[in-house]
């Protein structure tokens, strides 16, 4: 194991002109951020909404269904599968965004820089 490389500024990305870096960042961050926020709201709205429903519609929420009360059924049973669905959707979607971004971004980077990364990865690998 070599000493960790902590010196700032040795990353091969430094060779990429700042304007290109900014553009690249736009490409990779924005769509991911939008997706994350969309899925988060689908989860946070029911999560934070439930106490309000409990507070203001107690008659509905405490009604019995299938041996549970409505609110117990939602919180104690249905919430887990909801998060599974949301996260499965997110992982699929996020992977496809990544692949598309990779294609776009590759076009923006000069060829020599990509090969530069690959070389540096090889070097890092060779040190072990």
């Amino acid at each position, binding site marked *: 194991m070599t000493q*960790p490389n902590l010196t700032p500024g040795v990353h091969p990305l430094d060779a*990429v002109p700042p304007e290109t870096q900014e553009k690249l960042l736009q490409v990779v*961050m924005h769509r*991911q951020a939008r997706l994350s926020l969309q899925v988060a709201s689908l989860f946070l709205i029911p*999560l934070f909404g439930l106490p309000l429903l409990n507070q203001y519609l107690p008659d509905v929420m405490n009604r019995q269904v299938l041996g549970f009360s409505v*609110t117990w059924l939602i919180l104690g049973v249905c919430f887990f599968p909801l998060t*599974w669905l949301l996260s499965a959707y997110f992982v699929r979607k996020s992977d496809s965004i990544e692949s598309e971004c990779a294609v776009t971004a590759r076009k923006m980077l000069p060829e020599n820089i990509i090969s530069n990364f690959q070389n540096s*990865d090889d070097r890092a690998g060779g040190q072990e």
Partner: protein
Amino acid sequence: MTEGIAAIPLTFVILIIVATIALGVYATNKSKSASDFFVAGRSVSVFWNASAISGEYLSAASFMGIAGLLMKNGYDALWYPVGYATGYLLLLLFIAGPLRRFGAYTIPDFAEGRFDSPAFRKIAVIFVLFIGFFYTMPQMKGAGLTMSLILNWPYWVGIAVVGSVITFNVALGGMKGITFVQAFQYWAKVFAISVPIFVLMSVYGGYSTNLAAILEAPKGVPRLGSETKAAFKGKANAPANAVAFSSGPVTRVTFPTGATLDKISTARKLEPGEDVMPAGALSVMKGSLTVESSPAGGWPHGFIVPAGAALVVHPYPATRGGQPLIKAGNALRNAPKIEFLNETTGIFTAGTALPNAASNKKWSEPFGTLTGGYGHPLLYTYSLILALVCGTAGLPHILVRFYTNPDGRSAKRTTLWVMVLIGIFYFFPSIWGTIGRNVMPILYANNLTDSVVIKLPMQLTQNRLLGQILSGITSAGAFAAFMSTFSGLLVSMSGALAHDIYGRMLRPYATAKDRMTAFKVAAVVFGIVSMLLGLLVQSFDIAKMVGWAFAIAAASYFPLLLLGAWWRGLTKHGAAVGMLTGGLLSLGAIICSMALDKKLLLWEVNPQIRTLMEQPAIWGVPLSIAVMVIVSLMTVKHVPKDIATKMLRLHAPEELGLSKNYIEH
């Protein structure tokens, strides 16, 4: 109550301990280099890594604590499993991928790499220790409690034994050993929480049957089917020595060896102007003869019930100035509450309505005893939710595991699998709590609801052997729970010390071998400190304590990671000040709240503030974020010059090859 040693559960517990050590030793032989030692060589497949993360995450709080808290408080306690499980979604959406791509071992690595600031790393390390110690306390309580139930050992012996075994295992194997052990323990825990409850449901009826019985009798309270003995705690374990009697029917408890009543008060806190308890609310009887009857306001402190006598408790309609006290159209009632001075045994007559148990309505509906204790249930609920969902993303021992994924994509896949695995698990503790309420209500009387998963199977009097075996399975599961979580915490705390404090600050040129020695020494020291802390917290609910660790994580690491990964304007000053403000104030509020519960502090606190002290996330998280943003905007010139590069490393897809490990090895 079990007397003596429960041989079958003990066998199961020994089996799980032996299996854990054997697996740890086996795996250690395969772990050679230092990077293996710290993060398992990043060579673990998605499924096994997910099993290992789940195994590490499902702590004593999940295994024993949620069932106990649900049995005690009903609906409100459901927020805990939901929060523990769904917090991973936020982790998945905002943190797992970027953090793994950035390629650092620990949160302090991230802190340093993101802000180019070794000084900030020191601050970040502190919270690994704060959160870690807070999280180990409930694990220790679980260990001590389980051992006292199945072996009749004193509380501290269980802590010493379990603590030593795990400390030894960690000092030996580091994390590679642990990945295998943790994965094995996940499956052991799922088996242990699910199989016994299916057997019990075949005897006592299913989840919905039991719940429906509770929902259909809103005014009911749990009652004893037969005469039952209960062991009460003494003042040393306050507040667990309190017995708040039911305000419904009369209760009769016989004390074969007598009892000293340290304090007598009322079960429901007096409303403003409410009269003190009337004369005769308590009486001492020998057989059918009344020996002594209490004066108005109850007996003075230190009243002694003679050996063999019974204490009879008469609930009464509450009055104000002699007139019935009406609130929201209902005539209020009240009943005495007593606190024992010493450990005491009492025998309840058959049909007794259990003390310390809320009515079915209060138990099964939202805003009950857990959140409503200080009169601000909605505020409490929101603060709790925020702590749990944000805290998951800030737990140091969980985050370090994400580095065992080969890349950001597999980090996301792993998180998805973790959510499925722990979601399956978290479905079961609520069933235990619900059936426990109907089948074993005596646990309310002596504040032992946390032990329901161990005790409930022993109720199977029709088939004692089966009951013992099932209890053995759950005991082993509980052991797996504190072993895995405690070892994960020890690894992350010792790793922080060896890797960050020793390897970076004290001796930057220490060899890998020196660091491994430092790791081992740190593991032993932290193991001992954790055991000592565990001795202090016997009276607190396991799940609640874990909730507090989450609240601290939510107000310190969560904002750091969220803003650090998504907002380029975050400076080291902003991050450090925000993390310290939110984290330390939350920590302080929680410690004060614990001291108030323990009656070490005797402040009169406004109920709203008391709620905010017990559940600080609702102000702690926004405060931390706000301070980070404001201070960052004030120190804008300290934004690292290569911020675009850093953001790219966090977010660029791996195919581009832009991400390089921050730590090369």
